């Protein structure tokens, strides 16, 4: 095990050093090869722990009187590492291909050096088992991401969004550090010790740890109100990096929340679970609202990442509530939904970012209003984008459906809870998530249809080239994963169980969701024979006989009065869909096609001379109803509304520009910024405007805090 980890780190080390010594045009190959090999080793390493439970533990270096730096791999860490590996493998291949377009414009080693350093950091963060190494790696990750986001540094807005991200990231790190200090409770900063000391904490301290960790990690995870940096940073990040940004580093924020609030100090307060649930739901809704109205594909996907982070957090929050109220089996379902959705999001979001990157480099714009008809020039990209869009819009038989369905089902399990107040919160959050799911369909109908279908709205979109293999191959890989994860939930959930068990008081989602009762007659005694026979008739045990495993039906068992709480099978759904398509095709071939007359005509346009691209819906136009309906949220400000007229009534031009302040900027950031400005007037002299100094302040404050915690 150790050898595998060393191999990954060594490959990353080579990746950092080698590009500095070779010529520029070889760097893309290095990134692709080294990155994918390192990813494969990483997948091997994490799979060994995830599937086989091979443990790993290493003590690195003992800092006297502070902490012993240790690395440790449990199944929770392994899950995150495995997902990271799934993203990094195609991500590195895509990055290699995508980097070629920078040759001559930007130094490629300024990408590859932080890229591989970040690779190593992503591997090490889930492994670190003490607060000191964790925080140092966390800090390192922030800086490396900043370097990568600001890679195309000729554009000022990239630098600006990088700074914003760094500043918010530092604030988050500070919160996390404080959380660790409270949790350590004057004890050791190793996680094992913290887990022990946490058990003795009082309610106030538990609240403090929860809130500090939740919002501290929420910065990276993209939760409100600390996610305002995210859309800008994602938009600025180069196409080669942004899939990893969304697919791997966002998960680390969630990892932090799970590690602290699930593992080290399991949530015992219903209230803190509700905070997570509410924040998650609202994050999801705001995320999808803003996503729907974007016209830049990349920004749209960034807001959609916020939405998905919100859904995951809501599911986690629901899990916390069930744990705190003593329902570990239902909590296990919630955590399964959360982790499932996290894995799905990493995969389809990376896929969509690959496709967007390919569109950007081959068309030259990501503005949906200027795209259209790309399916004609980029058929494979269109196909894979469609798979990604169907997945993220939670349509079967793709993966997003399974996890969103589980999440919504979890919301309905609030009947098990005692407090009616909590039930109401669950009902409201469930409604919000359902609305989110509906809007997600609108959003991705827009993203796909307005970009790939219809008429090309610009010359660039007509003349685009087909995407390179280095882009389509990673997309294909991810698209296959989207489908596989969509139809095999009964195989995925037991794997997730390893990560769920420690945080759900050893309850197993697989027991609750995919019971092996269709074979071996083990559980038949618990269920009415007629019922089981029905399911046998439907073929629920097929999985057992055809392929090794647990059947293909996800089924939540209830009591004898209500044996099935919910059940579904995406695998059968996929089969039925395929059969229906096939049947339709056969019917068409056999019956209709025999006497058909094929007339090829252009789109019916009402009889005008010719239908021009400017006469078709734009992306902005498509989503404008959402903007109008949710005007209370968007609160558009009119920047310009002018009418140029000749005489009194002849209009020469109607010009309108609408501006928008993000609801968080309006309600949170701007008041804080105004207050801070007011306060800082007093401290104006202390400030001399160098960013480095501010970073130093942050680190200084961190060190001071740690020392105080150690010696007080």
């Amino acid at each position: 095990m150790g050898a595998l980890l060393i191999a990954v780190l060594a490959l990353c080390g080579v990746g950092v050093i080698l590009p500095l010594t070779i010529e520029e045009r070889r760097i893309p190959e290095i990134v692709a090869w080294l990155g994918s090999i390192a990813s494969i080793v990483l997948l091997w390493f994490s799979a060994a722990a995830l599937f086989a439970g091979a443990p790993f533990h290493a003590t690195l270096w003992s800092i006297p009187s502070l902490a012993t730096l240790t690395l440790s791999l449990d199944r929770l860490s392994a899950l995150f590492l495995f997902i990271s590996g799934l993203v990094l493998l195609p991500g590195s291949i895509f990055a290699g291909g995508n980097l070629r377009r920078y040759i001559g414009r930007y130094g490629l080693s300024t990408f590859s050096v932080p890229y591989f350093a970040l690779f190593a950091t992503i591997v090490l963060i889930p492994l670190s088992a003490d607060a000191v190494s964790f925080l140092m790696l966390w800090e390192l990750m922030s800086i490396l991401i900043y370097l990568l986001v600001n890679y195309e540094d000729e554009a000022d807005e990239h630098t600006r969004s990088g700074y914003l991200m760094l500043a918010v990231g530092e604030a988050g790190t500070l919160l996390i550090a404080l959380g660790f200090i409270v949790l350590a409770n004057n004890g050791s900063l190793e996680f094992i010790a913290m887990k022990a000391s946490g058990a003795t904490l009082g309610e106030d301290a538990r609240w403090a740890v929860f809130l500090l960790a939740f919002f501290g990690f929420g910065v990276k995870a993209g939760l409100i109100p600390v996610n305002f940096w995210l859309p800008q940073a994602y938009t600025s990040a180069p196409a080669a990096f942004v899939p990893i940004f969304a697919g791997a580093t966002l998960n680390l924020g969630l990892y932090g929340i799970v590690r602290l609030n699930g593992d080290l100090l399991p949530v015992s307060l219903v209230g803190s679970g509700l905070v997570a649930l509410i924040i998650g739901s609202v994050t999801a809704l705001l995320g999808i609202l803003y996503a729907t109205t974007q016209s830049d594909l990349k920004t749209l996907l960034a807001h959609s990442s916020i939405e998905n982070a919100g859904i995951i957090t809501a599911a986690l929050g629901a899990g916390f509530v069930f744990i705190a109220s003593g329902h570990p089996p239902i909590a296990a379902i919630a955590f399964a939904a959360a982790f499932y959705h996290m894995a799905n999001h990493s995969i389809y979001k990376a896929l969509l970012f690959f496709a967007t990157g390919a569109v950007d480099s081959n068309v030259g714009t990501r503005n949906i209003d200027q795209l259209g008809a790309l399916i004609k020039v980029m058929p494979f990209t269109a196909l894979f984008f469609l798979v990604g869009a169907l997945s993220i819009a939670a349509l079967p038989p793709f993966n997003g459906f399974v996890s969103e369905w589980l999440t919504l089902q979890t919301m309905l399990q609030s009947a098990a809870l005692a407090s009616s107040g909590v039930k109401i919160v669950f009902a409201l959050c469930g409604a919000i998530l359902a609305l989110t799911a509906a809007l997600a369909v609108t959003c991705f109908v827009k993203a796909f249809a307005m970009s790939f279908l219809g008429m090309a709205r610009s010359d660039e979109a007509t003349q685009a080239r087909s995407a390179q293999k280095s882009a389509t191959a990673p997309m294909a890989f991810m698209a296959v994963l989207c489908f596989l994860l969509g139809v095999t939930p009964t195989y995925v959930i037991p794997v997730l169980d390893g990560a769920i068990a420690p945080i759900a008081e050893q309850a197993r989602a697989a027991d609750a969701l995919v019971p092996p009762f269709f074979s071996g007659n083990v559980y038949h005694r618990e269920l009415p024979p007629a019922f089981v026979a029905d399911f046998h008739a439907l073929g629920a045990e097929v999985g057992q006989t055809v392929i090794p495993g647990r059947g293909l039906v996800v089924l939540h068992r209830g009591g004898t009065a209500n044996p099935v709480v919910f059940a579904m099978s995406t695998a059968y759904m996929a089969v039925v869909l395929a059969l229906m398509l096939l049947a339709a095709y056969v019917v068409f071939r056999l019956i209709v096609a025999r006497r058909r007359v094929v007339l090829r005509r252009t789109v019916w346009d009402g009889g005008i001379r010719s239908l021009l691209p400017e006469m078709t819906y734009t992306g902005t136009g498509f989503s404008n109803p959402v903007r109008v309906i949710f005007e209370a949220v968007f609160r558009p400000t009119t920047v310009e509304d002018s009418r140029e007229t000749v005489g009194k009534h002849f209009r020469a031009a109607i010009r309108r520009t609408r501006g928008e302040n993000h609801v968080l900027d309006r309600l949170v950031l701007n008041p804080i910024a105004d207050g801070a400005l007011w306060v800082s007037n007093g401290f104006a002299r202390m400030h001399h405007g160098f960013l480095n100094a501010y970073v130093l302040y942050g680190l200084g404050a961190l060190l001071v805090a740690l020392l105080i915690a150690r010696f007080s």
Partner: protein
Amino acid sequence: MPAELRELVQEAQARWTSRVGLSLDGADGTACQMECEPSELPEICNWLFSDRHYSFGGLVVEQRTRWELRYAFYGSEASWVHVVTYLSDAGDRFPSISGLVHAADWHEREAEDLFGLVFEGHPRLGDFVLHNDVWQDGVTPMRKTFDGRKPVTHRAPDLNWKPRRIVEETGAFAMPVGPVHSTATAPVYFQLETVGEDVIRAQPRLFYAYRGLEKIAEGRRADDVLLIAERISGTSAFAHSLALCQGVERLCHVEVPQRAASLRVFLAELERLRHHVAAIAGVCESTGLAVAAAHAAILEEDLLRISGSLTGHRYLFGLNAFGGLSTDFDDAACGRGAAAVAQVAEKLTVLQGMLSASSSFLDRLEEVGIVSFANARDFGLVGPIARASGLSRDLRKAQPYCGYDAIKFEVPQESEGDGYARLRLLFREAEQSARIVSAITRDLPAGRFRIPETDLRQGAALGWVEAPGGAALHWIRLGEEGRVERYRIITPSFANWHGFRLAAESFAFQDFPIILATFALSVHENDR
């Protein structure tokens, strides 16, 4: 001579001493002709329109030995003012008055398209009657040198031709609607500029049904042109044929027999009632209120059958003749017709009551498609549309004909200018029409229904009626052997289509068909 006109003439004399030729015209001294140099034109028209609040009736262009442009204005009290200007045939440039009198906008565009006259200062010339994607520049069908009987060879169509767009906003696009759109609608193309949801600019492109009636009338016998007048707009055929008849009768100094005048009022109001009922049915249908739409449609068919069984023709074709009517009607038959009309009116009142109690229906109409009074005046809107915005202009009152001055009736008026105001106005006018119908049949004067033979003279005259849609003006110039030299048709739909965008813009897509229905515009009447 009305006091209003006398005062107007005095002021004009004082202002443009010796520069404007003033002459009084017409047997009754109710029309005044002001002749001026083209350069004076905008000022005089603006004075009449903006200061004196005269309505702009229309522009009549005639190519005689020289260009003759006649701007017809009418006041609220029996008075017509024609501002006339001349230009030698060699030149073809006039100052535009549209900047000051916006109601003249489309008249100038039409004249530019069809006569090739240039109105200097008009910002939007071209692509109006003749569509620019195939018609080449320089084809001027209304000029005397153009042979209207032969087809025209077009240039190769410009496939990339598109109407002008003026909305500059991120994501703006032009939604094309038509010319073949919806079920059984007249051909018109709308270019709705939008960024989704709200219509920012609604520009209709008309004249798909342009049949060149003014041109094909030239050289024909006057009574054949009467058949053309009936077919300007089949749904207000009687009004238009009446306008032409009155023009010719005015020219030839024919006094129509009392009985004919009364029967003409009877038929004109029957037609107005049918037109309004059809419009009401259209409004109900546009809001998806199927039962109400069906009821209104039943009433429309009832009225068509009343017309059909009384006159032989459901749309009142072939009835008007110079000097009266082409046939007489039995008094008893008229009485039966009026009784049937009264029944229809009764059911209409019930329908109105039910509609005004249907809140979901009213929600679609109230405060939707608003035309302000000022806009209605500036755009020279006419008929029910103008009256719903508080602009009370009705030629039956302002310039009475057919003995309307002796008939007691109201001209309803609303002030909100929204869709519901227009609907209420349709109901109220329909009620008035039904009343006139039954009042007039109660004591139809006896006597002849027609002057046997009308002696057609040479010369020109204006005939006017308040058609169901509003003011219709027909300028007829007869030459030798009773052949038509110039026939200018100014229709209410032409004026109201011009202002339609005022109502349609800045409302949502789903309101668009409703606003269109409340306008009850006729494409055929506009296109001619």
